[in-house]
């Protein structure tokens, strides 16, 4: 990886200071829009503990191919506007009353406006047995371990029970476990192991997916592909010693290979603060993305406690909405108490339905996905396959 370029901090005290926490999709888009459109009106700092922005949507592919994850990283200094100061630090605390952020290094930074886009924290310990018994594909380390386990399963050649489930709600990218099970089904067919393998999908809710109209189409696919759906399965404990996953509702499922979405929480520095709920998600107005007690604080993406998918696409739309409100505030066009309701719950998902086909969901708070998107096809697959280029060279800029 390339090393981080630390740009010089501005010392101009006459302009308000906008601090953006998090160098992921949402944080980078806000930074780029402010850097381009508000440079005369605000100093903008992007704080990230990582040197790179990471494209997560390709992670399910990486379970099944042998490709490196290198192409999913891009150095922040290459994708962030030159008017933005990049500060490589890990946030450890917020002093909301004094408008200050403290870092692991011991230093701190003050802000006039704060945008929190620090994503989710994987709280593996909150489900007993998760670390010992479950695999996942929510980061590079998880992918590497899962690849080894899947290789062993294939080498053994006898099939068995593959269980794919969700440790807790909410979690990032609600379609990711569906993609995992559909792609696994196709992968097993390619390896001549499908007949010897029972595929089980554990869903905490009453269906495979939370949007009824989409769920009908997804459950039809489950039925056609012979995937066993277990609803109302809220994971309680993983008994790794006897390879059994147990639910709060009292069900038990045996597994040979267990793949679970890890439990998600807000980042530790947010937990226990007055702006966050009990899981550490920042409380915001669903349409303005502004904290109602501290109106100079905005949150978006996985970080916010919004009733919408935690996904890159929703973070993208939320970032654009947040950036334009902050631009209007620093330009003096609107008062901070009257920010516009710019976000309508918009999210889009390309959902892999095999290794070579996908569906497309586009929805918002009030509208379910369009009908044509339910038709699983090769075109959507190619869009998803090459979306990474659009992400790095289009979406992150905030222009698309």
């Amino acid at each position: 990886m390339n090393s981080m370029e630390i740009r010089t901090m501005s010392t101009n005290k006459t302009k308000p200071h906008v601090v953006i926490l998090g160098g992921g999709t949402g944080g980078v888009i806000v930074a780029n829009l402010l850097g381009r459109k508000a440079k005369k009106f605000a100093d903008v700092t992007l704080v990230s503990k990582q040197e790179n922005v990471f494209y997560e949507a390709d992670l399910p592919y990486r379970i099944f191919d042998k490709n490196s994850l290198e192409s999913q990283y891009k150095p922040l200094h290459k994708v962030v506007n030159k008017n933005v100061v990049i500060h490589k630090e890990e946030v450890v605390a917020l002093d909301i009353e004094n408008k200050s952020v403290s870092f692991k290094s011991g230093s701190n930074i003050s802000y006039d406006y704060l945008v929190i886009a620090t994503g989710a924290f994987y709280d593996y310990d909150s489900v007993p047995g998760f670390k010992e018994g479950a695999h996942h594909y929510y980061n590079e380390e998880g992918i590497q371990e899962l690849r080894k386990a899947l290789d062993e399963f294939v080498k053994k050649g006898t099939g068995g029970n593959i269980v794919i489930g969700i440790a807790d709600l909410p979690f990032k990218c609600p379609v990711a476990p569906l993609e995992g099970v559909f792609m696994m089904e196709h992968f097993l067919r390619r390896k001549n192991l499908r007949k010897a393998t029972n595929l089980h999908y554990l869903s905490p809710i009453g269906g495979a997916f939370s949007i009824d109209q989409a769920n009908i189409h997804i459950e039809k696919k489950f039925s056609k592909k012979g995937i066993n759906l277990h609803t109302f399965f809220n994971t309680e404990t993983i008994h790794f010693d006897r390879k059994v996953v147990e639910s709060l509702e009292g069900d038990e499922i045996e597994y040979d290979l267990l793949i679970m979405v890890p439990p998600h929480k807000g980042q530790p520095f947010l937990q226990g603060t007055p702006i966050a709920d009990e899981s550490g998600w920042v409380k915001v107005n669903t349409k303005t993305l502004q904290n109602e007690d501290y109106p100079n604080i905005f949150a978006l993406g996985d970080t916010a406690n919004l009733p919408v998918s935690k996904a890159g696409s929703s973070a993208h739309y939320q970032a654009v909405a947040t950036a334009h409100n902050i631009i209007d505030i620093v330009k003096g066009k609107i008062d901070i108490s009257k920010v516009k309701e710019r976000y309508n719950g918009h999210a889009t998902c390309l959902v892999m339905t095999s290794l070579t086909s996908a569906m497309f969901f586009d929805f918002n708070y009030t509208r379910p996905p369009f009908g044509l998107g339910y038709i699983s096809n090769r075109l959507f697959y190619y869009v998803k396959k090459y979306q990474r280029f659009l992400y790095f060279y289009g979406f992150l800029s905030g222009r698309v």
Partner: protein
Amino acid sequence: MSQDYIVETVIDARNSFCPGPLMELIKTIKRGELGKIYEVWSKDAGSIRDIPKWVEKAQHQMVDIIKENGHTRFLVKKMR
């Protein structure tokens, strides 16, 4: 006219969409006390179908379902 119940906790999930109200109820019941009643308010149409189904599956007791103006109150007794 519904009867009065002694409710341990009321969860106002009227601003939450499916599966929010159900998940809030599950979270509360999980750490709740045996024999106590927990109440969740929901405006989501899916709750009418999902909450009673979950209560039955999890072997708790659906004490009452009360329709109010614009939302529904679900009262659930923790049984295990």
